[in-house]
């Protein structure tokens, strides 16, 4: 948070990439992009490129970290050395360790850990290209990867950032806005309950600005959530089509019956997803 007033962040009423104050950068998400991972997602958010992988539930190493009553959730967020303008040092640093911690805590809230006692669920978030708000982009991707892995969750959380640039409140801070803006708030929301599961803030904001910024973040939940759900829907469509193909080739005569349940579940997520999630989430 530089607050460096020499760098213009709003030109002719628009942000540096032409966005309005309440406009998100374009988001694309693809689920199930990795071979070996239990679940995975690839997300682009503006120029951000994020890969999220989930391994587990699997055996816990080191063993003494085992929880007899539930899964141990672990999270590792990292920026690739080539992900930013200047070459970064490989491996974790103080910043990435802090982000990994708050991200893990957010997922500990969401994952129903009791289902798989004595196991570990490992979440890896790799920022391949970082152009601002990478932790919330990473969390959004990891949420899809977890769902893709079939990890039982209360909800699929979304991440979004809000902040203050040239005394105005804006959503989805890009790199320049993060560096030279006046405040930055990364947060994660569980859409079904509306609860905040990750929140950090740094900069200068009045109470009124902060409340307005929170409202702006909430206003964007559905838009981000839709991208996540679509990615999962696409994945399940593809995999159920693949199952059908396989069955066609194997010449089974019970194709219809066998493929039905799979079809149905993807159908379900098409229609009443929002509603059923709200009722079943257990809040």
């Amino acid at each position, binding site marked *: *948070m530089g*607050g460096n007033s020499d760098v213009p962040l709003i030109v002719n009423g628009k942000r540096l990439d032409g966005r309005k104050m309440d406009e998100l950068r374009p988001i694309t998400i693809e689920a199930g992009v990795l071979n070996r991972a239990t679940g995975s997602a690839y997300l682009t958010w503006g120029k951000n490129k994020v890969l999220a992988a989930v391994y587990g539930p699997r055996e816990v190493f080191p063993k003494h970290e085992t929880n007899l009553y539930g899964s141990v959730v672990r999270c590792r967020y990292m920026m690739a050395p080539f992900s930013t303008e200047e070459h970064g040092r490989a491996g974790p640093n103080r910043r990435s360790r*802090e982000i990994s911690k*708050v991200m893990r*805590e957010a997922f500990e809230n969401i994952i129903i850990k009791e289902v798989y006692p004595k196991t570990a669920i490992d979440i890896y978030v790799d920022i391949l290209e970082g152009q601002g708000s990478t932790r919330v982009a990473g969390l959004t991707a990891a949420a899809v990867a977890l769902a893709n892995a079939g990890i039982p969750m209360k909800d699929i959380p979304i991440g979004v950032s809000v902040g203050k640039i040239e005394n105005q409140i804006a959503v989805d801070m890009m790199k320049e806005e993060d560096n030279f803006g006046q405040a930055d708030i990364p947060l994660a929301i569980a859409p079904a309950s509306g*609860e905040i599961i990750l*929140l*950090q803030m740094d*900069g200068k904001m009045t109470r009124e600005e902060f409340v307005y910024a929170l409202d702006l973040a909430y206003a964007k939940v559905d838009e981000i959530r839709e991208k996540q759900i679509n990615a999962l829907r696409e994945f399940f469509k593809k995999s159920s089509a693949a199952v059908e193909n396989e069955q066609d080739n194997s010449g089974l005569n019970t194709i219809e019956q066998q493929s039905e349940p799979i079809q149905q579940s993807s159908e379900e997520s098409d229609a009443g997803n929002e509603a059923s999630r709200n009722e079943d989430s257990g809040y």
Partner: protein
Amino acid sequence: MVMVIDELKKDAIRELIKNGKRDDERGFSDYREISIKTNVISAAEGSADVRIGKSRVIAGVKLEVVEPFLDRPTEGTLTVNADLLPTAHETFEEGPPSEESIELARVVDRGIRAAEAVDLKSLFIEEGKVWGVFVDIYTIDHDGNLLDTAALAAVAALQTMKVPEYKDGKIVRENLTPKPLITIPTQCTFAKIGKEIIIDPTYAEELVADARITYCVGDNMLYAIQKAGSGSFSKEEIISLLDKSFEQRKYLLSLLNKL
């Protein structure tokens, strides 16, 4: 032994909180007794020994001549580091910095930095040379809320900071100029236990807490927030706790202003 007692207390504490009470009979919005002593380390350019209840943190400020950051060639630098000493608690171990100590240092750093509390622009010496302000947080004793204890110690130590003279390429630590903070940030940490939210949690209360949230504020200005723990907060809770942080600021500021 202490650990066992705190573990055994867990259920009792949850039950108490549910009934609007606390182990030490404090209200939900009451800090424990706070004491601040400054200038406790004569070798340091600023120092403070802060106790909140049985938690105790010593913060020391040292100044060295350093190269400025490329993007701020005329400003001094600020570095905050924290060591969770094994003297403070049986769960603190020797070795590379833990996640907890990194978070502690970064949260305290963020508040002071966002508040622009230290007048870094006045710490320019000559081209390529500026004062580097190093704040080191030493946790001596841990009975919860190390975050606020550390923040208070860091701010109090910086408030008493004196800048040495730099003459003929040498630091003269005998000639000191006071350099009080431009703005004084204050920090408040809350713990959520079940549906209740309390300020200044003890260690036993931290053990049962679902979530924690820390606000660093100035006069009508919010500087930093850090939410931690696996629990969650509603939007309304987040805003009401910000208001509480502004209220508590009056009290915390009165303690700092006495220095």
